[in-house]
């Protein structure tokens, strides 16, 4: 049994435990936090989600909630419905499912409700436009779909998505180190329960920054009305730059109303703290939609400057799927390693025994990750 400590990197450890079929024990989950000792609601919800998509897993949570023992079962897939708590966005729950889906017994068809876009977790738009194309590169191709049927902005949520993922026997080995040059930029600006003009203004501002480089910039506006618009007002922008070799670099930003700093509502505050929102350094309350547009465009430029074939928020997927690939050499180029990815690399080593060769490329300040895949095959898939 593998042992870990601390609440951080909870998802990836459970995900890797499920994929590699190794039981784990996580201790000291916020054990020194007086107010919110133990598992947060979204973590408990994630455990429940895992229980839904697998068969035969056992989860033991200690009385105080500070330690969890997880014995994975068989990944089943199939039709699943999950209501995500509003403390974290759907992206928090959907990200690991993207990595689990291809290794199930049946194709995964999951419907999730909750917050679709926020600044803590990857938004569903990014998942659709960034992670899914990467998935295709690894051989997960037919019937891959993410439909955003309802939008839900940050505090209350109320969005709904439908994700469908096929089952594969084995991933493909990928060598993806050609960055290429950026050939087009696409984006989605959505607005719910606010004036549709907001989305247009966001688009205008971001386009204004990006068209100086390339004329092929198209940002869709996506205005949801009525029942599909969730329970809170909000708007956000997601930008994706695609290079000639198919590398995708993304940036996103959502409007987030500033919380009352008086702290009168104690419950509300603790709730927000338990979510990831309190971890944000920047202020995402933009005075005008143009500010949001510019901010996002700048972040995209920042991402482009960093380079790599996998951008910061998709690094983990590349790393994980290389390690889960066939026993061949896989190679990807990423921008600077984020702390999240570094921990991912360590956890992959702990679970799968895969060590990456990490070579910095000084010519353009990127990192090349090379590994020999673990030869992982989808053992839960039935023989036809």
């Amino acid at each position, binding site marked *: 049994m593998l042992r870990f400590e601390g609440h951080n990197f909870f998802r990836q450890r459970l995900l890797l435990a499920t994929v590699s079929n190794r039981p784990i024990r996580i201790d000291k989950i916020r054990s020194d936090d007086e107010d919110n000792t133990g598992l947060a609601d979204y973590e408990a919800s994630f455990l429940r989600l895992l229980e839904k998509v697998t068969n035969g897993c056992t989860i033991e949570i200690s009385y105080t909630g500070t330690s969890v023992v997880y014995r994975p079962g068989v990944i089943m897939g199939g039709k699943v419905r999950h209501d995500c708590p509003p403390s974290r966005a759907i992206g928090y729950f959907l990200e690991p499912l993207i990595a689990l889906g291809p290794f199930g017994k049946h194709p995964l068809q999951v419907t999730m409700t909750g917050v679709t876009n926020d600044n803590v977790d990857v938004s569903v738009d990014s998942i659709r436009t960034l992670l899914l194309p990467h998935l295709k590169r690894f051989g997960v191709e037919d019937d891959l779909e993410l439909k955003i049927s309802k939008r839900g902005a940050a505090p209350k949520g109320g969005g709904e998505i439908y994700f469908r993922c096929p089952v594969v026997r084995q991933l493909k080995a990928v060598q993806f180190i050609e960055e290429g040059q950026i050939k087009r930029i696409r984006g989605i600006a959505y607005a719910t329960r606010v004036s549709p003009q907001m989305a247009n203004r966001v688009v205008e501002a971001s386009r204004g920054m990006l068209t100086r480089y390339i004329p092929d910039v198209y940002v869709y506006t996506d205005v949801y009305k009525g029942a599909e618009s969730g329970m809170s007002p909000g708007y956000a922008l997601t930008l994706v730059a695609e290079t000639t070799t198919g590398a995708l670099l993304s940036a996103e930003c959502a409007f987030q109303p500033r919380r009352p700093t008086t702290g009168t509502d104690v419950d509300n505050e603790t709730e927000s703290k338990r979510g990831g929102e309190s971890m944000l350094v920047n202020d995402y309350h933009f005075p005008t939609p143009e500010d949001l547009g510019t901010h996002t465009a700048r972040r995209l430029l920042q991402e482009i400057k960093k380079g790599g074939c996998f951008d910061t928020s998709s690094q983990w997927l590349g790393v994980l799927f290389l390690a889960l690939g066939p026993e061949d050499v896989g190679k990807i180029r990423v921008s600077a390693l984020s702390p999240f990815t570094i*921990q991912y690399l360590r956890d992959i080593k702990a*679970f799968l025994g895969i060590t990456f060769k990490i070579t910095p490329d000084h010519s353009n300040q990127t990192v090349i990750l090379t590994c020999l895949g673990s030869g992982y095959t989808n053992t839960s898939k039935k023989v036809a």
Partner: protein
Amino acid sequence: MEKAVKTHRPRQAGPKAEKKKPNKNAEKNNPKAFASFSGQKADRTIRRNLDKDQTKLHVPLVDRTPLEAPPVVVAVVGPPGTGKTTLIQSLVKRYTKHGLAEIKGPVTLVSGKQRRLTFIECNNDVNSMIDVAKVADLVLLLIDASFGMEMETFEFLNILQVHGFPKVMGVLTHLDKFKDNKRLRKTKKRLKHRFWTEIYQGAKLFYLSGLINGRYLKNEIMNLSRFISVMKFRPLIWRNTHPYILADRVEDLTDPETLRTQPKSDRTVSLYGYMRGTNIKPDMKVHIPGVGDQRISEISLLPDPCPKPEKVRKTLSDKHKLIYAPMSDVSGILYDKDAVYINVPGHFSKRGGDNVDEDEQEMRGAGEKMVFDLQNAPETFADNIAKSQLRLFNSSEGITGVEQESSDGRQRRRWEDPTQSDGEDDGDDSDDEGDMVDNDDENLSADDSDDSEESDEDELDSRNAGRRRVRLVELNNDEGDDEDQIAFADSDSNLDDDDDDDLNGDTRWRQKLLEKVNNGFALKKRVNLMDLVYGDNPTDLNENNEDSDGSQVNDESGLFRVRKATRNTDRSLALADACKVEAKSEDLNQWAEESTLESLRGRFITAQPASATDEQGIGGEEAEVFGDFEDLETGEKVEGKDGEGGEAGEADAQTDLTKRKEELKRKFDAQYDGSDDESGAANMYESIKEDMAKQATINREEFMDDDVNLRAQVEGYRPGTYVRIILKNIPCEFIENFDPTYPVIVGGLLASEENFGFMQVRIKRHRWHKKTLKNNDPLIISLGWRRFQSIPIYSLNDGTRNRMLKYTPEHMHCLATFYGPTTPPNTGFCAFQQLTDNTAAFRLSATGVVLEIDKSTEIVKKLKLTGVPYKVFKNTAFVKDMFTSALEVAKFEGASIRTVSGIRGQVKKHVGKPEGSFRATFEDKILMSDIVFLRAWYPVKPKRFYNPVVSLLLSSKSEWQGLRTVGQLRRDEGLKAPVNKDSLYKPVERKTRRFNALRIPKGLQSDLPFASKPKLLKKQSKPSLMTRRAVVLEPHEKKVASLIQALNTIHKDKERKRKEKVTEKRAKYLKKKEADEATTAGKKKEKMKEFYRDEGKKRAREAAAAEGGNRKRSKRDD
């Protein structure tokens, strides 16, 4: 009498036969005569040829054999007394000119310039056969021609088939037993064809005609060895995905002291062998068939004991013909369990006194001298150590080890203290680190000059660089416990803490530095990224967080108080379990500047074509940008770079153009070929193969230049290398009962194979196995690397559910579900009921393939709950005796029920009394005598039983006894199958049922509509008018009537006579027939009698022959 005409027999050989042979070249010489004029025929030929092409295709498999391939495992298999040892001895003699007295364990030798072979002999134990089948690349199947094929041979072939079917070559021995040449020929042919049906038509079968001096004939062995050397191997899926070792040496490394005190304690064992299959990871779990699962505690590379020759021109010289057989006695080297003995002729004991001649001393070799010198030593090594001195200073006195120990008894313990030793190490490191930092600083300043926006502060930076260097070195020297490669990160934060009261400028450069660290590259360039990620320091991620987020982040395991203190700064997305990284506002603000924006232009396709590739584009852009600011040192550098760029630019452009042209050409070719080629399938096949080849070259080349340690870390230990694996906690019986003739395999397990679960398999009882397999009877299963006993439940899918079966069906696959270590789907397995030797029957019980792995099962068996009605209304009935409580009824509310007569209904609701009775409705009125039943499905759970076959731990390895089957238990205990009286058949008694007449009251009858009124009229009491009246015939009518009566009488009489005649005739016929039959039966009886007499004689002959054979066999076994 006329003689029978003899048919013409054409000549089979000789010149005449040659002449009569159809001319092979006829078609070539006269093509017109053979031209096809039928379009249909041509069409058919084309189709057939295409079909034939398709049948040749196989699913392409990746060939993972490395360049330095491990020795090919050649297993020599056959029943006892077929000459296995003799064959290996002969082959070894042929390859290495060594005579092996005995074959124990694998024998590895160099067979050619490119190939090494490992021979193993498989003894006559099913366990061994299974294990050998899993590792052998080539099987030499020995068959005693004088006896014929034996049961073991077929068992082994079936085991082979299940585990991937490696190459098999048959070898017929004992051909010199045949006196009669014709019989020999016939036997050869018969055996050849039998062999072919087992392997494939045309499989190679060798004939070893006899022995000379206890060895097979030289030229026959040479032929065989040639065939072995040209053999090609197709990759087998299981071995292509799992690492494994065939151990050729086993040693017990347990501490002798532990052994003395606890002789039965678990052992630490090292196993040696060539890596095969795929790469093995250092902390992998392995399975040793016959022992169990173990985690590798240590694995290390050893020099190849039997290396391939480096450079050989044509043939191997004797020097290169190496042999390595540690467990057999090869040329005096004997590897015992825990020591290696070298048997050297001569004596090495020291002769009395020092009066040994000088001449004699010179005659000795270096090794011998050493032995003698050792004996000459006047003092022991310990004494020498005690005398040796350590002088700390020139002036000081030497300290001897003995003194030290006597003065400070803890001296030794201190060395073992890990923290202390760490301190020591770091002390050593501090110098190096200082150096490293030094270099880094230079890099840093160079970098700074590269960065445009820092131009204004560059001076500051360079000024401070020296200072910082000093500072860092100081820090390291002072503290000495910064034990990491990323000293930079650490010391930065330290600096932060220390220098709060620093100058303003100083903080500015520090901010700058932080920014750079955030950019990620300043750091990454000089810190070894591998160490950063995989280093031993577990907290450095958080330090990294500190760097990348610029805010203080405490270790999550830190004290509560500390966290409170820094609560406001305790923010980072990295702590929120999110993959996003927040961009810092300073970073984003820089995009407001035009120059920064412009610097990115090279990354877009709209960039000027001058920038050839994107990397260069960036470099060029950056260089341009750097041109903006002026620094004395770097200005030169930039210029130099530019100059180079200018010259190299044209050349680059040229190469780029040619590259682009090539690309275009390739694209065009691909398109052209694609449109031209009609057979898409073949094309796909080719392309897949091409991709595989491409991937294989990538795999080969990727880590070629890396050092050994990195390779081992990233790749694991590659196949083809010779490794030593140390395993801890091996049961002591493994060593105590070790027998080198049993193969020891170390098979690597993938992550998913360590777990247990239910496996659904498709299984078929082997057609040669005598009995059907019973549900819930234990089976010994060989699956993956493992051999284990488990209890399967057989089932069959009927389209909607898996229904349990009591027995395996005949000649048909069925499903079985059992508990065991999960093995990937599509893995083949074979099953046995017992492994012991004492049966003449075919032991292999079943074969199959894994279909699915799960943690739960869905097998059901039929369950019928019966009840009887105790009150029946029109469509409603009250049923009792089906359930016992209201709760049970509640559970089945709405369930469909049925009567035996087929009337369907539904359970409605529980009624009070009797307990468990319920109301039910039916589609029609049921009878009180009906039985009501409810068809349900009862889930059946397979037992969680897993019992590994630990045959290698036994002293007599073939006598492993697991759980016995029910039948065996009953046999052993002398029990009979229990009889349920209720299940016995009784004679069926059916009383005829009497029904009362339906009486409808008169009043009701009169009220009924006509349609419903009973139409039964009362019988007429008086004769009707028609019968009562008298008929008087007319005279004519009377005449006619009497005539007809007369005619009828005549006719009847005639008929009677005819019938009499027929009966008489028939009786006669039957009598005759009976007589005939009696005679034929007599004849037949005679015939059968003769046949059985012959048959009996034949049997007796055969029995006598077999007895003779056995006698011979037993003699050979001795």
